[in-house]
C-alpha cells in the first residue's frame, strides 16, 4: 500500500489547534438579529396564558414567535409542533422565540414573557407510559402523517413497535436446559458536545432561504424544512462549517426550524440562535433512555438457543428519531451470537422527557448493556468462563442475524479472532477477580459488540474532484467534519488511488448544499464507506479523462496507460509520460492551439440491496455489513466504600482495513471514553414534575481528562469487499460494549447483578444492601 494504513496528520488539525477554525457561532455581523427561547419549566402542563405585552414593548425586540399556525414536524412521524401550542410535553419545550437587536435584549424579552401553566400528571418513564391508565401524550396519534415502516398504536403511548420474529421461541425454550432473565433500566442523558448547537437563518430578497448550522445533516435541513413548510428544495441552501462534536445529537433537525421561523418573523433578516448549555441539554434532543427485559435460554454446555426480549425506549415527548432508534435496537437486539430463535418487541414510548436524537452507536450500547450483562449472568449460572461462552456462540459467516439476513465472510467481521486477541490484552488467564490488599479487588469485565448501520435504502453520497493548475486536486464531499477525520481519510483514499502526494489534495471542509454534492448524513460510521466509494468513482472518472487526452498526446492506446505520481505514463515504458498539470486544464500545442479543457471528476455511491424490514417478522437487510468487536474493562474497587477506578479499557475491533492508524485509534479511544462516561456517571435526574434537576455541566459531568483509564486498541482486518480497501465502520464501535463491560466487571467484583446506569458508587452500595 502506498499511503493506506499510515497515520497521516489530519487536514483540519492546524486550524483547530491554533484556534483558527470557525464554527457556526463564530459568524457575527453587525446587522444580525438574535433569538432567544422561552422554554417550559415543567414536564407536562397546559399553557393557560401567554402574555407577551411587556416583552413586545421592549425597544429592540423585533418579533415574538409563538406556536400558532405552524405545521407539525418530525422525521418519521409528524407529531411535534416546533413551538408548543396550548400544552407542553417536556421540560425545555419551546413556548416562544424572542427576536431582538442583540442577545441581551432578546433575553430581556424572554424574561418579560409571562406564562401561566397548569401542571398535568407526568409520565416519567417508559414503563409508566405503558400502563393502561397512563396519561396519553398524543391523543391524536392516529392522525399524524408518517412514513412507511412506522407503526403507532393509537390510544396508547406507543409511537412505534418493531417486531423481531426469528425461528420459533417455543422450540427454543424446549431445547433450552438453562435459562436466565434479567431487567435493566437507565434514564435519558446527553451528548454534551463541546460546541452547543447554533443556527443562523435569513431569507434573501429572491426568496432563497439560507441556513447555516452546526449540523451532521445539512442536506436533511434542506429536505425537511422544504417538506414541513412547502418550500421548493432549490430555494433552501444549508451551510455547515466545522462542527465541534456531534455524536448523533446534531443529526436531528430542530434548532434550524426555529431559526427559520425567527427570520421569517422579521422579514428575512439574518437571525442567529445559539443554545445556552441548558437549552442544548433540555430543548434540543438528548440521548435516549431504556428499560429492558432479556430472557436467554441455552443448553447445559452453553449453546444459545433462544432470546426473548422486550425493549421499552424512553423516546421522550416526540418521536422524531427515536422511532428509528427503537428500530435499530431491534435489528441488533442481541449481542453478536448465533441464536436461532429470537422474539423481540422494541417499543418506542412517549414520555414527558426531552425527546431523543441518535447517540453514537445508535441504540447499540444501550441494547448491548442489557444483552451483554445477561450473557454474564448466564455464564455465571452455567459456571462457564464469560469469554468462553461468547466464543462458543460467536456469530460467523453462514449464520443469520436477528433480521434473518444470512452473513458471509464479507458482511461480518471475525469475532472469534477479536475475542482471542482481547484475551491476550486483558491477561484473562490471570482470573476475573483478584484480591488486592485488604478492601480492594481488581476485576475484569468483557462484552462483545456488533453493529450494522440502519440507514435509508436510497441514501447516497457524491464527490466532485477539480484540479488546480499545478496538478493538485480539490476534493469536495458532503461529509461533515465532525471531528472524526473522515475528510482526511477521503484524501488518503484518493492519494492511494492516484498514487499522489496527500499534500497535493485539498479537502473542502465546509459544506454548502448548493455547491457540494450530497452526502445523506454524516452518521452511522458510514462516511468512509459511502463517500470513500464516491471518491474512488470520481477518481476513476478523472483517470479515464486523463488517459483519453494523454492517449492522443502520447500516441498510445488508452489500455497501455497508467495514472500515478502526478503523471500519465506508458505501463511498459514509464519514461514516456506527460505530467498531469500539463493536461488537467487542457493541452496546449506549441503554436497555441489547445484541446481538452478542465477536468472534473464526479462519483457517487448508493449501497445496494438494503431493504425495509418486514412489519411482522422484522426480516430484511437493514445495513451493508456488521462490524464486530470484543471489549474489556479492568477496575479496582474498594469493597468497603464502593468507590472504584477504571484501570484499563480495551477494544479489539474488526475494522476491515485500517486506513489511518492514528485517527482510527483515536476514534476507538474516544468512543471508549464516551461509553465509560455514559455508563459511569452521565444521567439526567428528574423530579416528580418531570423537571430535570441537573441540566448544567456543574451537575451533569462527563468524564474528564485525568479520570480516564489506560486505553488499549487493537485491530483485526477482515475485508468488507464492497468498501474501499475493505474498510469497515469504526466511529462508534469502541463505545458499544463499554457500559456492559464496566457493568460486568463491577458485578463480578461485588458478586451481585448491577443492572442500572449510571454505575456510581451509591448504586453499588444500594445493590449491596446499603440504605
Amino acid at each position: 500500500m502506498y499511503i493506506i494504513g499510515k497515520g497521516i496528520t489530519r487536514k483540519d488539525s492546524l486550524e483547530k489547534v491554533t484556534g483558527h477554525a470557525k464554527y457556526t457561532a463564530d459568524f457575527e455581523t453587525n446587522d444580525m438579529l438574535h433569538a432567544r427561547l422561552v422554554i417550559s419549566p415543567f414536564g407536562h402542563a397546559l399553557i393557560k396564558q401567554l402574555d407577551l405585552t411587556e416583552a413586545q414593548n421592549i425597544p429592540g425586540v423585533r418579533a415574538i414567535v409563538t406556536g400558532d399556525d405552524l405545521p407539525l414536524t418530525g422525521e418519521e412521524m409528524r407529531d411535534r409542533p416546533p413551538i408548543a401550542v396550548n400544552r407542553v410535553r417536556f421540560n425545555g419545550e419551546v413556548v416562544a422565540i424572542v427576536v431582538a437587536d442583540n442577545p441581551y435584549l432578546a433575553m430581556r424579552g424572554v424574561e418579560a414573557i409571562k406564562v401561566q401553566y397548569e401542571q398535568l400528571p407526568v409520565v416519567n418513564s417508559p414503563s409508566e407510559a405503558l400502563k393502561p391508565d397512563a396519561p396519553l401524550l398524543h391523543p391524536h396519534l392516529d392522525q399524524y402523517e408518517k412514513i412507511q415502516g412506522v407503526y403507532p398504536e393509537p390510544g396508547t403511548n406507543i409511537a412505534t413497535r418493531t417486531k423481531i420474529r426469528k425461528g420459533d421461541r417455543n422450540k427454543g425454550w424446549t431445547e433450552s436446559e438453562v435459562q436466565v432473565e434479567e431487567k435493566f433500566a437507565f434514564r435519558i442523558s446527553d451528548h454534551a458536545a463541546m460546541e452547543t448547537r447554533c443556527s443562523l437563518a435569513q431569507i434573501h430578497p429572491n426568496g432563497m432561504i439560507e441556513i447555516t448550522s452546526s449540523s451532521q445533516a445539512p442536506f436533511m435541513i434542506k429536505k425537511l424544512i422544504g417538506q414541513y413548510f412547502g418550500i421548493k428544495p432549490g430555494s433552501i441552501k444549508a451551510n455547515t462549517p466545522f462542527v465541534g462534536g456531534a455524536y448523533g445529537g446534531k443529526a436531528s433537525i430542530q434548532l434550524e426550524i426555529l431559526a427559520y421561523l425567527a427570520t421569517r418573523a422579521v422579514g428575512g433578516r439574518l437571525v442567529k440562535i445559539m443554545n445556552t448549555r441548558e437549552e442544548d441539554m433540555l430543548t434540543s434532543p438528548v440521548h435516549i433512555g431504556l428499560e429492558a427485559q432479556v430472557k436467554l435460554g441455552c443448553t447445559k454446555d452453553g449453546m444459545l438457543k433462544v432470546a426473548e426480549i422486550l425493549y421499552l425506549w424512553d423516546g421522550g415527548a416526540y418521536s422524531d428519531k427515536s422511532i428509528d432508534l427503537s428500530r435499530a435496537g431491534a435489528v441488533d437486539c442481541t449481542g453478536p451470537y448465533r441464536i436461532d430463535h429470537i422474539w423481540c418487541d422494541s417499543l418506542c414510548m412517549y414520555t414527558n422527557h426531552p425527546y431523543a436524537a441518535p447517540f453514537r452507536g445508535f441504540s447499540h450500547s444501550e441494547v448491548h448493556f442489557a444483552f451483554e450483562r445477561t450473557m454474564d449472568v448466564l455464564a455465571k449460572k452455567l459456571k462457564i468462563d464469560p469469554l468462553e461462552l461468547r466464543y462458543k456462540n460467536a456469530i460467523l459467516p453462514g449464520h443469520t442475524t436477528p433480521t434473518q439476513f444470512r452473513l458471509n465472510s464479507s458482511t461480518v467481521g471475525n469475532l472469534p479472532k477479536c475475542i482471542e486477541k482481547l484475551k491476550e490484552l486483558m491477561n484473562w488467564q490471570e482470573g476475573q477477580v483478584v484480591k488486592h490488599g485488604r478492601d480492594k479487588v481488581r476485576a475484569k469485565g468483557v462484552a462483545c459488540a456488533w453493529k450494522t448501520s440502519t440507514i435509508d435504502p436510497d441514501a447516497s453520497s457524491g464527490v466532485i474532484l477539480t484540479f488546480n493548475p499545478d496538478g493538485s486536486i480539490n476534493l469536495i464531499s458532503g461529509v461533515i467534519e465532525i471531528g472524526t477525520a473522515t475528510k482526511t481519510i477521503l484524501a488518503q483514499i484518493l492519494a492511494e488511488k492516484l498514487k499522489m502526494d496527500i499534500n497535493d489534495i485539498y479537502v473542502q471542509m465546509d459544506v454548502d448544499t448548493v455547491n457540494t454534492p450530497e452526502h445523506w448524513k454524516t452518521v452511522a460510521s458510514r462516511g468512509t464507506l459511502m463517500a470513500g466509494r464516491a471518491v474512488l468513482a470520481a477518481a476513476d472518472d478523472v483517470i479515464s479523462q486523463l488517459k483519453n487526452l494523454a492517449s492522443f498526446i502520447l500516441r498510445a492506446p488508452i489500455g497501455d496507460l497508467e495514472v500515478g505520481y502526478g503523471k500519465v505514463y506508458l505501463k511498459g515504458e514509464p519514461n514516456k509520460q506527460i505530467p498531469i498539470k500539463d493536461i488537467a486544464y487542457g493541452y496546449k500545442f506549441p503554436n497555441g492551439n489547445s484541446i481538452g479543457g478542465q477536468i472534473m471528476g464526479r462519483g457517487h455511491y448508493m449501497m445496494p440491496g438494503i431493504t425495509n424490514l418486514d412489519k411482522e417478522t422484522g426480516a430484511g437487510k437493514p445495513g451493508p455489513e456488521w462490524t464486530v468487536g470484543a471489549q474489556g474493562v479492568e477496575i479496582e474497587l474498594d469493597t468497603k466504600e464502593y468507590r472504584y477506578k477504571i484501570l484499563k479499557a480495551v477494544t479489539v475491533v474488526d475494522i476491515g482495513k485500517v486506513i489511518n492508524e492514528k485517527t482510527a485509534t483515536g476514534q476507538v479511544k474516544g468512543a471508549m471514553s464516551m461509553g465509560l462516561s455514559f455508563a459511569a456517571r452521565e444521567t439526567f435526574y428528574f423530579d416528580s414534575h418531570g423537571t430535570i434537576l441537573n441540566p448544567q455541566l456543574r451537575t451533569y459531568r462527563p468524564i474528564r481528562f485525568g479520570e480516564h483509564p489506560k486505553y488499549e486498541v487493537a485491530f483485526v482486518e477482515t475485508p468488507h469487499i464492497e468498501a474501499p480497501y475493505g474498510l469497515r465502520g469504526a466511529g462508534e464501535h469502541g463505545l458499544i460494549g463499554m457500559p456492559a463491560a464496566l457493568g460486568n466487571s463491577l458485578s463480578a467484583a461485588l458478586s451481585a447483578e448491577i443492572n442500572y446506569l449510571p454505575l456510581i458508587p451509591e448504586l453499588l452500595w444500594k445493590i449491596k444492601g446499603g440504605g
Partner: protein
Amino acid sequence: MLSADIEYYRPETIQEAVDLFQILKGENKRPIYYSGGTEILTLGRLELAAAGAFIDIKAIKECLSFGFNQSYLIAGAALSLTSIEEKNLFPLLSATSMGIADHTARNKITLGGNLCGKIFYREAVLPFLLCDSWVVAAGGNGVKPIPIGQIFNQTFQLEEGQFIVQLLTERNYIHLPFVSIKRRQQWETGYPLITVASIKADNGLRFAFSGLCPFPFRSKEMEAELNNIGLPVPERVKRALAQIPGPVLHDVEGSSEYRLFVLENTLNEIILELEGE
C-alpha cells in the same frame, strides 16, 4: 451573559469601596461586591442573582495580600484559589481549595467569593473554622477583625455594605497535622458528596464539614464525641453522627443515607490517620 444594565466600579481603597456601596445603594442601584465573578455571572445568567452595580474589590491591595506578619498569616479575600495553592503558605487551605471546581475556574474564583458564595458548599471556610481565624471586615463602621466563630453561622453574617477584606490565622495553626478529604458522587470532579477537613490541635481533633448539610460548619458537639478517647473509634463516630446540626442533604449528588455512610467511613479513616501520628 446578563441581560440587565449593570454598572461596574473598581475602587482602589477600602474606604472608596465602602463609600461607593452607600452611594449606589442610595441611588437604588442594588450594589454587590464583586471579586472573581464566577458565581455572579453564572447564576446571573440563570436569573438567580440580580444586581444593578458591581463593586470589584480586586484592585484593593489589602484584599490581595498573602503572607505572614509576626503572629498571623494574612490571606486577602481577592486572592484567586490557584494563587493560594501555588504559594502554598497554608497547606490545609491549599488542600481544601484544590478540591473546589477545576483549575481553570479556580484561576478566577477568589477566597472571599468562595467564602461568601450562594452555592452552599463554601469549602474554603473549613480551614478557617478549624483554626479559629479572624475575619477582617470593612463596612460603614470601619475596618475591624472579628473572630470567625462570631461572624460565621452557616454563612457570614455581614452587615449590609460590609465585605471581607482578609482572614487572619495564627501562625501556630498553620503547620498542625491535618487531613482534608473530599468525596464525590463519582471520581475526581464535581461538588462534594461530603468534604471533611480536620486538624490535630493540642486539645484534640477538630472537624469541619461541607456538603453534609446545606451549609458548611464546624461542630463542637460532634468534636466532643469524636474526641471521646475512652470509646472505640467506630463508636465515637456513630455518636458524632447523632450530633449533626441540621438536615443531611438529599439531592442529585447523593441520598442522605448514602452521605451518612460515606461520612462514617471518612471519619473513621481520619481519626485513625490523625490519632495514629
